[in-house]
């Protein structure tokens, strides 16, 4: 994939995630005990052999930049190509799906000009999967496609899960006839994965038409050109999760406690890279009792933990009872604490004797650095 570059855009519609995005962008939301959301798409890109990667940053990006650092963990601290941060000067919130505001890209058009690759992958940062893009590129070439959009057939849709999805209406040959923004208009359950591939030259042409027309929404433009452009849909059939609300965030975290999904996501096609941290292994005390849980490193566990995800350096005291919880980095849970259906953000200190219970369909979220 020497001939492919990637642009990672930052999803802006974050209303339903706002309890997790007080001081971070969506791409940097912690997930799966050790990762930020962007780690998944970034690892997919790197493991597919793409070496020129631009990341559009809009606001609240400091923690994201800290997370990505020199790009060393993704082997992107190279002389040739590598990782580029592309500031969007556009602070307006933009609600259309596929979440590609072409103004952000236009604002960095000289980066596109300077790049040498023939193809470009444009992706959001909020889809979790472990995927190799080679078959997608093959498909794109074989179909002589102009734009190929990744999609997944979802048979168990709930409005809650997919309130802001795009659906791809297509013919029997996978050619997209229309991209629709609501389930009601959709003829199938083909959910767009917010990732497409096209030629860099075509993207530059599309940007030209944007300037002329004043329309900067990629989906609108594609819909207006379904006859002149060959737009195809490539089906992904592996595990994928789309994070667009606290509800889906909680649900998909719990989902990876399924060992099959854990294996597919983390030990599947390739490894998922993340920022290196020098923490010791996790210490299980004699008194600990842990079941069906995902535990990162540097934790020290003395109490009971069940169906939960512990990020690094979480300490769980004696006689605790932690059930169906997500506890992010550096959580300090003193003795005799009861927690059920709770999402605890980073650096939270829960004092001895606390009792917190959320609902499974609406977990309690404890903000970063809280003391309770």
């Amino acid at each position: 994939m020497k001939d492919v570059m990637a642009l990672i855009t930052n999803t802006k519609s974050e209303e339903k995630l706002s309890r997790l995005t007080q001081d971070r962008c969506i791409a940097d939301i912690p997930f799966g005990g050790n990762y930020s959301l962007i780690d998944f798409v970034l690892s997919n890109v790197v493991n597919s052999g793409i070496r020129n990667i631009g990341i559009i940053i809009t606001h609240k990006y400091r923690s994201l930049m800290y997370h990505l650092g020199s790009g060393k963990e993704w082997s992107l601290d190279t002389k040739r190509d590598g990782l580029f941060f592309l500031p969007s000067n556009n602070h307006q919130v933009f609600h259309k799906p596929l979440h590609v505001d072409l103004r952000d890209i236009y604002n960095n058009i000289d980066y596109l000009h300077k790049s040498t690759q023939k193809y470009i992958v444009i992706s959001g940062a909020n889809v979790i999967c472990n995927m190799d893009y080679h078959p997608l590129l093959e498909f794109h070439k074989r179909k002589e496609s102009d734009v190929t959009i990744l999609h997944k057939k979802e048979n168990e849709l709930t409005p809650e899960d997919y309130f802001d999805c795009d659906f791809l209406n297509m013919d029997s040959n996978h050619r997209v006839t229309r991209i629709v923004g609501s389930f009601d208009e959709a003829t199938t359950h083909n959910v767009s994965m917010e990732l497409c591939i096209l030629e860099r030259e075509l993207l530059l042409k599309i940007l030209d038409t944007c300037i002329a027309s004043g329309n900067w929404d990629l989906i609108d433009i594609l819909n207006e050109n379904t006859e002149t452009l060959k737009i195809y849909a490539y089906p992904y059939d592996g595990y994928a999760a789309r994070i667009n609300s606290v509800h889906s965030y909680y649900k998909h975290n719990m989902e990876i406690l399924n060992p099959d999904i854990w294996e597919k996501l983390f030990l599947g096609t390739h490894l998922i890279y993340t920022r290196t941290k020098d923490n010791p292994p996790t210490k299980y005390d004699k008194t600990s009792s842990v079941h069906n849980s995902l535990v990162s490193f540097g934790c020290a566990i003395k109490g009971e933990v069940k169906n939960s995800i512990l990020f690094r350096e979480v300490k769980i005291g004696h006689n605790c009872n932690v059930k169906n919880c997500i506890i992010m980095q550096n959580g300090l849970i003193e003795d005799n604490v009861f927690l059920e259906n709770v999402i605890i953000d980073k650096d939270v200190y829960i004092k001895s004797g606390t009792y917190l219970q959320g609902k499974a369909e609406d977990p309690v979220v404890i903000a970063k650095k809280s003391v309770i």
Partner: protein
Amino acid sequence: MQKRKEMLAMLLAGGQGSRLGLLTKHIAKPAVPFGGKYRIIDFSLSNCINSGIDTVGVLTQYKPFILNSYIGIGSAWDLDCGNGGLFLLPPYAREKGGHWYSGTADAIYQNIDFIDQFNPEYVLILSGDHIYKMDYSLMLQCHKEKNADVTISVIEVPWEEANRFGIMETNSEGKIIQFAEKPQNPNSNLASMGIYIFKWPILKECLINDQSDANSQNDFGKNIIPKMLDRKMRLFAYHFKDYWKDVGTVESYFSANMDLLSGESELNIFDDSAKIYSVNSAHPPHYIGSQAEVDNSLIGKGCQILGKVKNSILSPGVYVGPETIVEDAIIMPGVRIGKEGYVKKAIIGEQTFIQDYAQVCAADIKEQPISEVENHSGIIVIGNHIDFSNNGTNHKTIVDFCNKKCLRSVMDEGCNGSYNQHQKRRKTF
């Protein structure tokens, strides 16, 4: 433009480590995994950077490939800095051919040019097989205060073990007045830790001197130090009082690992102030299954624990199958243990696959059963990259051998390899 270095460190990492048996069959001793996350050399290298030493020469010789690629240019320890750096120093060929390093002092002697280019005032000599956290800058301070020619780091050992060490006798100001290698009747219990700070000009002169002595083994403990004492040089002892362990044997390696599990270990790897750095692999968080039990153990990244783990240390990427019991064991990276098995008091080498229903438990017999399995005073060591699950090959022999003959249990009810017996034991875990 190279600025003068106050002190650089030379880390001896070339020994064969034959007393570690199968653990060092394919790799150099300093590269052996430790503590569920580290490799042994992480401790010395982290100590260096935590003590402000940014220039380290690593002397390699024995099977250095994994060690070399693990260390690289020292990025994992932030030693890849513009001003100093980490340098691998294998033996090399000159115009008239090459010389292998024939002793610890000879290894340094052959790299005098390397050291000279930094023009250091002091040289710190370290070993690559010690587990400890130490601030060498405090030792250097002591060295300067005493205006010593060499300062030797010493630790108090139990009197009954003193005859296994190089023992120092010091006067009231810490000056070494006598040194005895493994004395029968020790006059002191201050043992040398094999950590030295020398004034570089003095060490250089001693090394050159020692090379011309045909009877010398070119060893620091056996030759350089005794000769300096004979020459009435200023040798001082630096008392180190924290945790320190030489992991040169399977027994000491095993117990140093187990020390991490005892609540009161003096080596606090959880301490943030002087972190032990290592190369981090891209493993996910580990998964503890619904039926799993984990008790007094260290679990590394990427493990999948479906069975029961007690008093054990699991390195990254270990799989423990359902209803399998792992007890008092050290499991190296990437090991897979099938279902309904039993592992007790064992060290299982990297990437080895143990088949379902297997029984790996300490034997009380002395014989060496087969080349991939060793018994070190009751600790079973199994080599790297062995696939016992592959019943079609001659590994089957080994499996049978393990199950039926060699690996008798030391548990009270004995180990007859029967599945029922094992089931019963598992229930009473």
